[in-house]
């Protein structure tokens, strides 16, 4: 097993969903306060040496320069604050930056998180801002939206492997089932395969219930050097593997639309660093922005062979109680996808799972977890591997 690179000693997550009248700074403060309050041994002003925050776009809320703003709102001025942007993987990139800052010895305790405020805009407005993370000159300019990009991936996957619309629907059904057990989730309601199939078309073969919602929310973690983690908690979670890769912004400039090279490469790095195999993973949070993305992620992370993602969902292997539970939080699909918050929200869920704090959605005795977060049409991909540190 690999050596701990950094340790999570506390986590906080705001309620995800339509948070009417609350803006990013307020949502971020809600998550940060929960992380502070869950860690009585932490004195935030004394201990936290830096903030790393992921947020996708200034356009949602007409607010840039957010790192000092959030830092101020949580009362931590004047320590350095860094913002990263990697579209829907913004806070996973923040997390890697934070990990490196700890590994380098620059800081021993940092706050890392992410946030986005989206629901005050209508669907077309949000579609347009999200679309900015695709290639403006050759995709957006020709009317290609993000659901459109993932729709094209789905068409290719279905053509190549015979994946069906029912299999896509089952991902949504599973994640809603899990979301119903998560009090912080945007949607806490079960849905049926028939409801998914009958929902309005968005970008064929993707229908409304194949798509994650636009949500408001924030998430954060207290990361420390593994050396001092036990000063803050008896049950830290160690990050033992991390990987990241990039790909073309435009989907069209790739050779294969039915897999995500960034996920494959990031996973290879993370598995190697952690010294674990795909079969060792006991719980995973994957990037199901659209149902097809979770199916593809199964394959790229080697939870199954290429083309067998549909079969894996058919078998129920990725449900709570299955061989490898995926998205016990409800995933982006049901927990919600405030894009900048998603990466660290995945890490929060794995932290809760590995410390037995996940309540009704607890995976029994999980020791090793994984998160996979992609940005845009998988132009950024980040994978983290975690292990119980007690």
């Amino acid at each position, binding site marked *: 097993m690999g050596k701990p690179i950094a340790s999570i000693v506390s986590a906080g997550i705001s309620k995800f969903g339509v948070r009417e009248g609350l803006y990013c700074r307020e949502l971020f403060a809600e998550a940060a306060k929960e992380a502070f309050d869950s860690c009585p041994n932490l004195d935030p002003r004394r201990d936290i040496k830096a903030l790393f925050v992921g947020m996708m776009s200034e356009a949602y809320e007409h607010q840039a320069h957010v790192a000092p703003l959030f830092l101020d709102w949580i009362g931590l001025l004047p320590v350095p604050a860094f913002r990263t942007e990697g579209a829907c993987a913004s806070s996973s990139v923040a997390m890697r930056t934070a990990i490196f800052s700890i590994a380098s010895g620059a800081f021993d305790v940092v706050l890392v998180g992410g946030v986005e405020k989206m629901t005050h805009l209508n669907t*077309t407005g949000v579609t347009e801002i999200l679309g900015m993370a695709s290639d403006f000159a050759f995709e*957006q300019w*020709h009317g290609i939206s993000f659901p459109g990009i993932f729709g094209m991936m789905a068409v290719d996957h279905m*053509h190549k492997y015979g994946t069906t619309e029912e299999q896509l629907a089952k991902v949504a059904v599973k994640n809603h089932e899990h979301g119903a057990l998560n009090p912080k989730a945007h949607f806490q309601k079960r849905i049926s395969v028939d409801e998914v199939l009958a929902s309005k078309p968005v*970008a064929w073969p*993707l229908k409304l219930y194949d798509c994650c919602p636009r949500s408001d929310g924030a998430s954060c973690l207290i990361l420390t050097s593994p050396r001092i983690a036990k000063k803050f908690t008896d049950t830290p979670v160690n990050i033992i593997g991390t990987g990241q890769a990039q790909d073309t912004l435009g989907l069209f400039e790739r050779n294969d*639309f039915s897999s995500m090279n960034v996920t494959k490469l990031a996973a290879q790095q993370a598995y190697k660093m952690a010294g674990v195999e795909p079969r060792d993973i006991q719980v995973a949070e994957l990037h199901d922005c659209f149902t097809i993305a979770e199916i593809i992620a199964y394959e790229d992370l080697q939870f199954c062979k290429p083309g067998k993602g549909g079969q894996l969902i058919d078998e129920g292997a990725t449900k709570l109680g299955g061989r490898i539970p995926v998205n016990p939080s409800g995933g982006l699909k049901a927990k919600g996808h405030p894009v900048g918050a998603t990466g660290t929200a995945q890490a929060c869920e794995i932290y809760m799972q590995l410390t037995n704090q996940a309540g009704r959605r607890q995976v029994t005795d999980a020791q090793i977890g994984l998160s996979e977060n992609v940005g845009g049409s998988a132009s950024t991909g980040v994978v983290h591997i975690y292990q119980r540190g007690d």
Partner: protein
Amino acid sequence: MLADLPQPESSTFTNAGTNSLKTTTTVTARESNPPFILDEEGKIMPTIENFYNYCAIGKLMGVKCTSCGTLTCPPRGICQNCLGTGIEWVQLKGDGVLLTYTVIHFPPTQFLSLAPYAVGIVKLEEGPNLPAMIKNINFDHLKIGISLQIDFETAAPEEWPKWPRYFFKPRT
């Protein structure tokens, strides 16, 4: 008309992977209708703006690396194969086959009036992939592998970006 124009320096030119190109030429700004962006030597730079300037005169153009012969469309100033920066413009036929597609029902704001519309990624005969809308097609006829050809909108926006759009349609 093109014969009158200065030809590229061909001595350093290697011809890897370019056999399928029907038309190979360097076009200078004399041909330009919209203002092309030129480098210090007066050559048309391999930029997005110039790619769309060519679209405005009904031409789909890519660039060929003068070091390794790699063809790139849309154009880039640095060859993704060898990092070379010498290029020459190459006209592409605009014929290709559909690699993947979707029909968009919930579009970004400016495309609302067009929905539902089909988009896809087309593999051009010469090699590169290009995404665009697919028009003049019954959605039931969309299928991976069908033959398509490019066409150009005649109008372009008046404010930035003034890029005229191209689209694909069933090959006639």
